[in-house]
């Protein structure tokens, strides 16, 4: 295990620190609430000479990701951070980054998308980018946001993967709360992430290459997408081994899916992000009252851990999925759709109830979680059916 220091810091501060420890060659970023303090802190590290990164100030997120794509193609280790409207403005370059197989690491401070304008947490921004070909990690706490950033670097740059990774943390709840975090020493992180060995770097003048070529009708576009899918599939194994190695270094467990109380649970809630803590807190209380409550937290959303999730949920009598994002017109939120699909091949058909909660930072009160578990107990007992579309706690 590495030497660690316990600090009191916000999620954004420790994400910036993790990025400093990973020593990116280039950061190109544009500030946006609630991501701002990540890039502000990082710019401070550059100004003080604590990291030797080329920090590119740009005029928009569209340019930020464009600069990241260029720098990454040039052969640099590249990082950035964004949120909400900023991520939306990066939309076309997100696909360019993954299609060109550039291992860019980006922190995303989850925030609602306008309109109406709102600066608080939901996962609508990240879920809107879920088909962009990025590996997506989600953090429950500032600690996980720190850990995920370091693991993201290793996952992205693994030669079997070479895909960009988005590391998400909940806006304000995680980005701006001061929390207790254990941080690794600089040397251990440097050793863990290692040096980046780029392939086909534009700056390798001995081996000139072309990036961004055309692959039109009749050309191999389809084959390139297939190769991208294969890389995403291979990342499952890499995520799991990088996670195991990081656990050994840090002493903190990591799983694409992290379960609590699932050994004998009758009712289970599947959730992403900071709300997992609230759910676990309620589940503990219910356990004390004799309710066999469990929780499954999804820490890796892309590639989606179907097998792990199905295994974790085998044996439960009713499942609820909490989505902090909408997919208007779909049968449920993005996580609901994945979870129900993961359970389709299970031997017994478990009822799955979908809830949309916490949009635009709407508070996740503990009584709302209690209500979900209570609904689940009724469904498990056969006295109720999962039904309709539930906006948890909305007036």
């Amino acid at each position: 295990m590495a030497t660690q220091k316990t600090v009191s810091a916000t999620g954004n501060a420790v994400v910036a620190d993790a990025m400093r420890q990973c020593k990116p060659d280039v950061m190109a970023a544009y500030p946006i609430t609630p991501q701002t303090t990540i890039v502000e802190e990082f710019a401070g590290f550059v100004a003080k000479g604590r990291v030797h990164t080329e920090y590119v100030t740009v005029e928009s997120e569209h340019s930020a990701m464009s600069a990241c794509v260029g720098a990454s193609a040039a052969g640099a280790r590249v990082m950035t951070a964004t949120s909400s409207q900023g991520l939306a403005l990066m939309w076309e370059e997100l696909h360019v980054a993954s299609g060109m197989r550039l291992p860019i690491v980006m922190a995303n401070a989850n925030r609602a998308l306008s309109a109406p304008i709102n600066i608080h947490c939901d996962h609508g921004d990240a879920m809107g980018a879920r088909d962009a070909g990025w590996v997506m990690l989600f953090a429950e706490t500032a600690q996980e946001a720190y850990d995920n950033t370091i693991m993201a670097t290793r996952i992205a740059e693994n030669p079997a993967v070479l895909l960009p990774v988005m590391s998400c943390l909940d806006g304000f709840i995680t980005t701006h709360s001061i929390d207790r975090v254990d941080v690794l020493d600089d040397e251990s992180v440097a050793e863990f992430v290692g040096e980046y060995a780029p392939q086909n770097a534009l700056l390798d003048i001995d081996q000139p290459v072309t990036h961004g070529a055309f692959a039109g009708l009749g050309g191999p576009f389809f084959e390139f997408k297939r190769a991208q899918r294969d890389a995403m599939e291979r990342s499952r194994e890499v995520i799991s081994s990088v996670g195991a190695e990081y656990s050994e270094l840090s002493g903190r467990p990591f799983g694409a899916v992290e379960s609590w109380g699932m050994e004998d649970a009758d009712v289970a809630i599947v959730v992403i992000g900071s709300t997992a803590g609230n759910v676990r807190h309620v589940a503990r209380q219910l356990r004390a009252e004799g309710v066999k409550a469990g929780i499954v937290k999804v820490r890796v959303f892309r590639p989606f851990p179907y097998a792990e999730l199905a295994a974790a949920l085998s044996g439960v009598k009713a499942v609820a999925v909490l989505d902090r994002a909408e997919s208007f017109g779909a049968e449920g939120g993005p996580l609901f759709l994945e979870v129900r699909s993961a359970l389709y091949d299970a031997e017994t058909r478990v009822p799955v109830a979908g809830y949309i909660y916490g949009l635009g930072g709407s508070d996740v009160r503990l009584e709302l979680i209690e209500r979900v578990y209570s609904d689940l107990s009724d469904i498990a007992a056969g006295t109720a059916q999962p039904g309709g579309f539930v906006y948890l706690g909305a007036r």
Partner: protein
Amino acid sequence: MAKWDISRIDEWKGDEFPLGACIPESGNSRDYVTGGWRSERPVRDDAKCTQCLICWIMCPDSAVVAAGEKVVDFKLDHCKGCGVCANECPADAITMVPEGCELPEVK
């Protein structure tokens, strides 16, 4: 450096292509024969030509061949017949003439 062998490119599977649609060599546009796009070819009248080399500068496909600071020929395997050379020639020394059915340079 050895040429990038793409003779079986139409059979390649996704993982046989270079990563991320990268082309791992430079200067390979000379391998891409565009002479077949041509319906007219440039013909230069050596008597009128002042050897100003404007056609050599202007040709978008670098298909004007110069040697010893004089225009000597057109590379018809790359000339698309756009007529820029004829249009720019200050001495009216280049004429565009219709191609026949035979395009020996691109066969």
